């Protein structure tokens, strides 16, 4: 790569940016599809071991990315159980690893949000005949704009991590190189100004995404009350 800021004109940089967004946004979408209903069910359900499960889920928010990467690598390696899928060193493997990483974050935060809202909705929904999972999903959809915060937390974690995508992606130029692994590479090559510049680009993009989400949330709250 060239010096910063000339690199901003390099098509390779924008290919890396697009790939980073594809991987992290895909992971967020998948983790939200699974994690939001899981959090809602956990908030509303009552079963033995519920408290232990909540504690474990909260603890999993701190999963080290490099550990997740290692597990997924061992699973997807040709020598591993799912090697036949040939997913190692592809963007798909990176999406899988990041989804696993941020699923606990989204589930734990949505559980808290639904549990807080549940106090308001519980009686009314039961009176109308909505019970269990049906009621939980109704609350989940009703508080969808405040859930944006937990989704953004997941996105932040995914776009910031380097340990998982490095191990399962291999940082292959043009194929699995994302912003964070590119920054790690330039740093190890001793090109610190370029690495810093790439870091600034990454943080700007994340800032823009957060600002957009904030505006959506504000507009929706004004509209729906």
């Amino acid at each position, binding site marked *: 790569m060239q010096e910063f800021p000339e690199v901003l004109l390099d098509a390779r940089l924008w290919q890396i940016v697009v790939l980073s967004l594809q991987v992290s946004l895909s992971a967020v979408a998948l983790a939200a599809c699974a994690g939001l209903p899981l959090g809602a069910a956990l908030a509303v359900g009552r079963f033995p071991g519920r408290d232990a499960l909540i504690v474990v889920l909260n603890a999993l928010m701190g999963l080290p990315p490099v550990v997740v990467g290692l597990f997924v690598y061992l699973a997807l390696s040709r020598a591993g159980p799912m090697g036949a899928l040939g997913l190692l060193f592809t963007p798909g493997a990176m999406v899988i690893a990041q989804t696993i990483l941020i699923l606990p974050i989204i589930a734990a935060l949505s559980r808290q949000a639904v549990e807080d809202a549940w106090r*308001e*909705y519980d*009686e*009314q*929904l*039961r*009176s*109308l*005949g*909505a019970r269990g999972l*049906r009621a939980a999903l*109704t609350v989940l959809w*009703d508080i969808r704009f405040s859930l944006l915060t937990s989704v953004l937390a997941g996105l932040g974690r995914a776009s910031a991590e380097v340990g998982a995508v490095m191990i399962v992606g291999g940082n292959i130029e043009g194929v699995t190189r994302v912003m964070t692994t590119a920054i790690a590479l330039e740093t190890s090559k001793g090109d610190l100004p370029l690495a810093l510049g790439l870091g600034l680009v990454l943080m700007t993009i994340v800032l823009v995404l957060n600002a957009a989400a904030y505006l959506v949330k504000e507009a929706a709250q004004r*509209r*729906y*009350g």
Partner: protein
Amino acid sequence: MILPLALRAVSFRDIIKPLSLEIEAGPSTIILGANGAGKSVLMRLMHGLLAPSSGTISWLRPGRHAMVFQRPVMLRRSALANVAYALRLAGADEALAMDALEEVGLAHLADRPARVLSGGEQQRLALARAWALHPEVLFLDEPTANLDPSATREIETIIRAFDAAGTKIVMATHNLGQARRLGDEVIYLHQGRVVERAPVDQFFARPASAEAAAFIKGELPWVS
């Protein structure tokens, strides 16, 4: 016909002491009592939102009964969608939602987000939602406690219309004037016990129990 509803030796923690009563079809029943007497808990026990600590609560047959709360809880959707949601839960035709809105005079606000409606409008919407499925019994827990007089009048008009259409009304209230306007019989609750039960005129003119008399006096100081 799901009535009568029979409560036998029903208690709830130390709020409701073991009591037995029957709610019959026909007359509008008002549950009266001071704060903390247990009105809200009794209503919730009858509607099935709480399980009794002891005793049994049985309807003649399983059927539909609905409840309107002091503070209505609306979903973040349009007024029409809130009613449609209730219909969908029951497996009924969602097209009936508009009829229900017309019954309470909210048809012109059908597409407005429910949470931006005024307090009185939201309570009317709650009535529409509760009534859309034509329940045999409608429980109301202090439905106008948070509303101004004109909104209160609108709600009472709707309740009277539902009563006239044949729905059994069971309503807890603080408002003695409202009790006289809407009620046919009064159940007076004092510290978790049913202390008196009488037709409404008789209750106010000649309260049989000392507690009821004191209550009426406290609420209406000019009655001697």
